[in-house]
């Protein structure tokens, strides 16, 4: 993921992002925008109110016993800052996505497409069809286009003919070209990418405006603002808390009037004054959860952005949150848990042949075998017995070349035929293949199938490896090559990590149960599904879901599509088929199946950031009471001064609290954008840790913060 690292390390307050964000923050003062967020809307309303009070004050009609108009104005300004800072946080989060969207949009510029007209002769490529130049925007689902070297691909679609290298850097950020070809799992192409060589005939799969690129732009811009159920629940909590504090503050006015009345009744000379609206409003804004309220949308946008930076495109925020909750992870064995190919790991010689002789024969038979298995045999022979690689041509003799016998599905063997030579007066034939095929070959050559080889074949199978039997043209069985599925390094640790997160891993493989069990044990997965068919996968997912679990899976093939559609979190590989991409709710541009772990982490981070900042926001209120209550009732009940444990200047204590309340939003923007760090430990320990940091921290920080601000504010002597 080269692109993600550059994004992540760039400074959060990058001037290129900050400048437009400031403008956008001002534009968001529009009350219609504010109405979407009940907490900040309350702040907006009281900011207007306080501004009006300040204006009234300057006109000589200020509140009785209230602050000077200047101080009211300063409080009003800081209340406006509270709104602006929240807007700024959101704009910052959006800004990062917008930059990305802009570059995506560039690749979306209108292109000319070669639309295939009339009948097409299949299998003849460009020469089999007649094309007309049309605008890419006019293409509809089902249209067929020809794309030749240098042409941009005009829309999402499926390759129906041809093979070509395609530059997909516009969407993946990966500059190395990829191969796209008809049939198989690499048949989908994305609009806005470019064919570099050869040609493709593509059937367009989406109408204008709903293409993959469109979805991606929508997603990074945060244009789709649908709240997830979890966000709605949090909104309810925050709204209820806001109402509670609204009541607590609003009823304080009658309480204060009563207290003043009582004080005046007791002492006619009392100078007690009811609490002013300015102070009540300041108290209210300090108490309602502005910190989380102001950062909530920034957290969501940043969460989606982190996903984009991990090169994953999600179709909805809901899918991202669901990722944090995944209980079961279905992983394909091949390519995810093991390397895609099996590798030779041992030579087992039989019937008197030495291991060296077997290795020599195996190497000879594999020299021209360009499959990864074949290459691994040559490599192993060199590593173990120092048998150097020979040149196929040098094995020829007297003008007669050595001939390679390729593997066919029919013979299920491959091998080599060496011509008569001084070394091999009778020539030499070597074959390697499956046990059954070689047994048949040995019998045909007049030999007897080796009993020892049969035993070894069984043992090797039990270990989860694949046996290849080697025999020569004389009907003699030389031995068995053991091909092993190599489990990726570090994968067992990742699964252990997942287990600590509470996620169960299930390996999906087409192997037989014996092989599957052996690999499952080595990789450390919790369970496996052997001889998996699309139906079996679908059934397994449904079973888990019936048990109340949330299932995630990755897939790329068309036959994965039903299972992807059923899974709660379905990540399709970008290299996969169009069907898979449409069935999934996320697409991984890197086509990396272990990316799911990253996605789970991002989902959890999103929730954790929300929860931690909510806790922090509420915990802050305790200190604010100690700052504001003594100052607010100074004239009525001087005794309450005992609660002024921060020793704030009563004239500025309220202003200092409001300033703290506004600044803390800015201070926490980096945390909101980066997200709270997730560590895969037990939930209870994680809660304890976060309660300590954000709960206890949230209790203490404002005591220090408000005190410091009050000291600074009092450096300006104008307040007293």
């Amino acid at each position, binding site marked *: 993921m080269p692109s993600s690292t550059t994004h992540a390390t760039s400074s959060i307050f990058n001037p290129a992002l900050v400048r437009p964000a400031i403008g956008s923050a001002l534009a968001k003062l529009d009350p219609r925008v504010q109405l979407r967020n009940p907490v900040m809307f309350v702040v907006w309303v009281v900011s207007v109110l306080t501004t009006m009070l300040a204006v009234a004050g300057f006109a000589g009609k200020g509140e009785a016993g209230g602050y000077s108009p200047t101080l009211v104005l300063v409080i009003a300004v800081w209340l406006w800052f509270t709104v602006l800072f929240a807007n700024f946080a959101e704009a910052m989060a959006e800004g990062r996505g917008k930059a990305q969207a802009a570059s995506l949009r560039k690749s979306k510029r209108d292109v000319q497409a070669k639309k295939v007209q009339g009948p097409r002769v299949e299998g003849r490529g460009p020469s089999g069809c007649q094309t007309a130049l049309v605008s890419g925007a006019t293409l509809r689902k089902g249209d067929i286009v020809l794309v030749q070297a240098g042409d941009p691909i005009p829309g999402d679609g499926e390759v129906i003919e041809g093979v070509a290298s395609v530059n997909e850097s516009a969407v993946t950020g990966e500059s190395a070209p990829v191969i796209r070809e008809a049939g198989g799992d690499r048949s989908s192409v994305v609009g806005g990418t470019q064919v570099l060589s050869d040609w493709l005939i593509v059937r367009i799969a989406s109408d204008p405006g709903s293409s993959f690129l469109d979805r991606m732009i929508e997603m990074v811009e945060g244009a789709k603002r649908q709240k997830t159920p979890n966000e709605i629940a949090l909104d309810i909590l925050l709204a209820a808390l806001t109402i509670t504090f609204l009541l607590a503050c609003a009823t304080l006015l009658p309480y204060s009037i009563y207290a003043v009345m009582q004080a005046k009744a007791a002492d006619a000379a009392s100078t007690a004054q009811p609490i002013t609206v300015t102070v009540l409003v300041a108290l209210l804004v300090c108490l309602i959860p502005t910190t989380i309220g102001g950062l909530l949308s920034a957290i969501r946008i940043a969460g989606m952005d982190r996903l984009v930076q991990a090169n994953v495109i999600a179709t909805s925020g809901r899918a991202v949150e669901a990722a944090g909750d995944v209980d079961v992870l279905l992983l394909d064995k091949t390519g995810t848990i093991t390397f895609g190919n099996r590798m030779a790991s041992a030579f087992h010689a039989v019937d008197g042949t030495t291991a060296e002789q077997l290795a020599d024969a195996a190497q000879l038979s594999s020299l021209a075998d360009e499959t990864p298995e074949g290459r691994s045999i040559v490599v192993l022979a060199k590593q173990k017995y120092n048998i150097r690689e020979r040149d196929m041509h040098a094995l020829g003799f007297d003008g007669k070349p050595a001939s390679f016998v390729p593997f066919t599905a029919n013979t299920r063997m491959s091998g080599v035929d060496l011509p008569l030579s001084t070394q091999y007066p009778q020539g030499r034939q070597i074959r390697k293949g499956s046990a059954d095929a070689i047994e048949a070959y040995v019998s045909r050559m007049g030999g007897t199938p080796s009993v020892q080889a049969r035993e070894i074949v069984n043992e090797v199978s039990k270990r989860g490896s694949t046996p290849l039997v080697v025999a020569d043209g004389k009907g003699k069985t030389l031995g068995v090559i053991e091909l092993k599925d190599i489990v990726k390094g570090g994968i067992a640790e990742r699964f252990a990590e997942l287990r600590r997160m509470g996620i169960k891993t299930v390996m999906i493989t087409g192997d037989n149960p014996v092989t599957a069990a052996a690999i499952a044990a080595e990789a450390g997965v919790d369970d496996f599904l052997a001889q998996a068919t699309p139906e079996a996968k679908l059934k397994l997912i449904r079973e888990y879901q019936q048990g109340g679990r949330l299932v995630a899976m990755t897939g790329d093939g068309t036959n994965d599509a039903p299972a992807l559609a059923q899974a709660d979190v379905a990540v399709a590989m970008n290299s996969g088929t169009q069907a898979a991409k449409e069935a999934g709710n996320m697409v991984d541009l890197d086509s990396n199946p272990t990316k799911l772990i990253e996605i789970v982490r991002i989902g959890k981070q999103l929730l954790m950031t929300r929860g931690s900042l909510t806790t922090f926001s509420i915990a802050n209120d305790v200190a604010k009471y100690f700052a504001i209550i003594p100052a607010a*009732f100074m004239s009525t009940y001087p005794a309450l001064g005992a609660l002024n444990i921060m020793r704030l200047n009563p004239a500025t204590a309220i202003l200092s609290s409001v300033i703290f309340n506004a600044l803390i939003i800015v201070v926490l923007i980096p945390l909101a954008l980066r997200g709270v760090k997730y560590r895969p430990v037990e939930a209870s320990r994680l809660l304890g840790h976060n309660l300590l940091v954000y709960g206890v921290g949230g209790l203490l920080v404002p005591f220090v913060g408000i005190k410091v601000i009050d000291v600074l504010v009092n450096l300006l002597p104008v307040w007293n």
Partner: protein
Amino acid sequence: MNDPTTALVPAPTLAAITGSGVLQLLIYLAVLLALVKPLGWFMARVLEGKAGEAPLGLGRALGWLERGIYALGGVRTDGERRPVETGWKPYAAGILIFNAIGFIAVYALQRLQHVLPANPAGLGAVEARSAFNTAVSFATNTNWQGYGGETTMSYLTQMLGLGVQNFLSAATGIAVLAALIRGLARKSSSTIGNCWVDLTRSTLYILLPLSAVLALALVSQGVVQTFRGPQEVALAVPLSTADGAVVTTQTIPLGPAASQIAIKQLGTNGGGFFNVNSAHPLENPTALSDFLQVLAILVIPAALCWTFGEMVRDRRQGWAVLAAMLAIFVPLLFATYALEAGGNPRVQAIVGVDGESATAPDALIGNMEGKEARFGIAGSARWAATTTAASNGSVNSMHDSYTPLGGLVPMWLMQLGEVVFGGVGSGLYGMLMFVIVAVFVAGLMVGRAPEYLGKKIEPFEMKMAMVCVLVPCAIVLVGTAVAVLIPEGYTTSNPGPHGFSQILYAFSSAGNNNGSAFAGLTANTPFYNIALGLAMWFSRFWIIVPVLAVAGSLAAKRVSPTTSGTLPTHTPVFVLMLVAVVVIVGALTFVPALALGPVVEHLQLVGK
């Protein structure tokens, strides 16, 4: 503030805390906890049992009665004698209708008592607004009393109206709780129980037997139980009044008190038979009767936590909720004792000035104002904390006379929403609403979509839980605000912050269905009768309906299996989280109001 004694005010002291006082509190807690498991087990059996069956032979003794009630009321049962269950809406409708009928019955009895029998004192009909207030009060398990029992209510009204409601309002709490627990315990279910069955069984098998036992025990201590009218007796030593008249006799009120007091405590009702409630020598004569009554106040709410754990098949969950309640209750219990034992610094100073030696430690006196000598400071503080932690509201001392902070504790315990034990059933279902809030925030903090007992907490549950948290807060704050703005509200016995505390206390009590009175406030006025009546009604049923809605919504959900990523809700960390949510919501909502009442009163008392 110009009092010459202020200069001599000594710092508050804890020196009057005694070993025996502390021991009284500890023994109380130990006995209470010992009863949690057996009673909790018993109640779980009752709430999960089939029609006509109950443990400890009660099914054999009373099963015919239960079945008879169902036959009479038309409750249908299936082939296995399990009553037909309903969803939350019919359940809630049943509860509302049942309580509305109860309200009407109590109102009618009061208004007609002068023409009905069992009225030996010949008391007249109760005034309409007072009757409204009392009817609401007893239908909502609040038992706020604006009247004096012995001078207002006939024996028939006491027994058939108030006594019956003592049972039925408590049974309502247990029934609603049982429905909520079933909602949590069941998987993909459309029903949460049958409200008539829950009401019948909790009355018949839980409240009736326990009350019978307690009533007999109280009678043994000298609590009266008779239909005889008030008795005129000669005073041992004649008194002379200020105008010189000599008084030789006094009127001793009597009545069927013991039976009503038993359920008054067990059902967290708290409405006294006599005006001074459990401070009255015929309502609470001895130290043992005091212990039994204060124990009865908390025993069902505490044991229901165990019942909850048992019914959701995870006892640790019940212990965790109980631990959270204790974590709030125990410190406040000891704080009340310490604050009262510390006494009033100004009284202490006067004792010193008078030369009665304030220097010797044994001369340090706690605050005995408003307390009965036979209960002492520890016994009174124990009762004050218990009666307000539970939504009982009975008193054995006058909270109005407590030190400002000593009086703050009971007030704040009510303001927490009556979830620290709280009312029978209602305390725990209220607490479970706080659990939903705590689980939500805690779940987010560990990166999981929040769930409790495998049930996902979604916007609907959150909305209902927040209604339950918000309604009492709003009623208390707004009610107090209205009362201090209009002259009708100024019926306080003290000016200044203490008068404000009296009003705040009244609305805290009514708005949380406690019924405890601070005393000092004259509440039998048209304004308070109506305002507090409405407060009690809304705070009861605006919580019950959302709670049942949550029960219905949870019952329909699937249960997610537990993994190591699931947040366990039985751990100390979660208990801490729950305590923090309850305390912080309670504190943040009421700190400004409390600052203008007891806090400033305290600061003025100790200030220079």
